[in-house]
């Protein structure tokens, strides 16, 4: 069997390239937020969840404490437990493979597997996207960290603007309906109102509490907010 003929493998590889490449922006922003190259590499190797990594460096870069950064990153990672549960049923890894599967359980691998219907294709999609993104994301994190370190003054190159664009880019694909857009606007407003009154980093956690309460007491769709940054199947849809 030629693996490259498997549709899930092809989708997984293209998502790995698209997502892996933007490890460059994480690496560059991490270094310009004051992290050294080893801390940047550790975040990509060990934390390995794009949104949480950007959250961690974003909180610290904005003057927040390590504790606030850890809390924001951990709350943002809760959706990976939901993906883990879905992948446990769809991919069914056993033994030590569970540990590897857990580490590569992210938006992209879960979305690639969920988009397939055959059990074998789901498994191929999950592993190709998960391991592919992991390898390329880490390679391009190092490239970005070296580039960021060579740039000098981050404000002159607009790297603070790059951080704004990165967060908006991570948020954007999740705003396809009215309710998620309303949650986003409310949380942004709560944040702006809180900034002058509490220590840096805390406004983000206050907004998280509001968002959590909306999810807990609300009746919205179950899967809102659980979209990948790069949709593995968006091109196929537009081809139809």
């Amino acid at each position, binding site marked *: 069997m030629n693996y490259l003929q498997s549709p899930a493998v092809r989708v997984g590889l293209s998502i790995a390239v698209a997502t892996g490449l933007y490890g460059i922006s994480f690496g560059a922003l991490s270094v310009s937020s004051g992290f050294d190259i080893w801390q940047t590499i550790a975040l990509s190797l060990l934390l390995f969840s794009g949104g949480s990594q950007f959250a961690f460096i974003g909180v610290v870069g*904005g003057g927040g404490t390590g504790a606030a950064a850890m809390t924001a990153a951990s709350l943002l990672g809760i959706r990976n437990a939901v993906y883990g549960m879905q992948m446990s049923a769809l991919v069914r890894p056993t033994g030590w493979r569970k540990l590897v599967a857990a580490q590569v359980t992210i938006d992209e691998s879960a979305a690639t597997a969920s988009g397939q219907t055959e059990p074998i294709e789901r498994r191929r999609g999950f592993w190709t996207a998960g391991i592919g993104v992991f390898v390329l994301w880490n390679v391009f994190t190092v490239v970005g960290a070296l580039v960021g370190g060579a740039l000098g003054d981050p404000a002159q190159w607009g790297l*603070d603007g790059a951080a704004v664009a990165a967060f908006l880019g991570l948020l954007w694909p999740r705003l396809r309906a009215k309710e998620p857009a309303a949650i986003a606007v409310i949380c942004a407003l709560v944040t702006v109102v809180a900034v002058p009154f509490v220590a840096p980093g805390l406004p983000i956690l206050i*907004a998280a509490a509001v968002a959590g309460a909306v999810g807990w007491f609300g009746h919205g769709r179950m899967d809102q907010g*659980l979209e990948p940054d790069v949709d593995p199947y968006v091109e196929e849809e537009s081809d139809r």
Partner: protein
Amino acid sequence: MNLWFWILLACALAFLTKLAGYLVPARWMDNPRMSRVAGTLTIGLLASLTAVNTFASGQQLVLDARIVALAAAAVALLLRAPFLVVVVIGAAAAALARLAGMP
């Protein structure tokens, strides 16, 4: 050094969160509320991080070149630009706004 502690703790928690999905019996987590909170948290945190990175400077609210970056990134996203292009456009917009004299 202190920062390393929080980095490694965040990494450990991230892995254990992912692993929990594989180890906890499905019926424990097969709870619509759990999925919904995970989703709204993701949206709320990303919106909040966008706002902080655009408007906050320490504990002050400021309007500077970053608002131009936000607008430029939104236009790029509306035009369906890929993520990396959006980030580069955000950086270029902020850099150009500063060249033009914005703080």
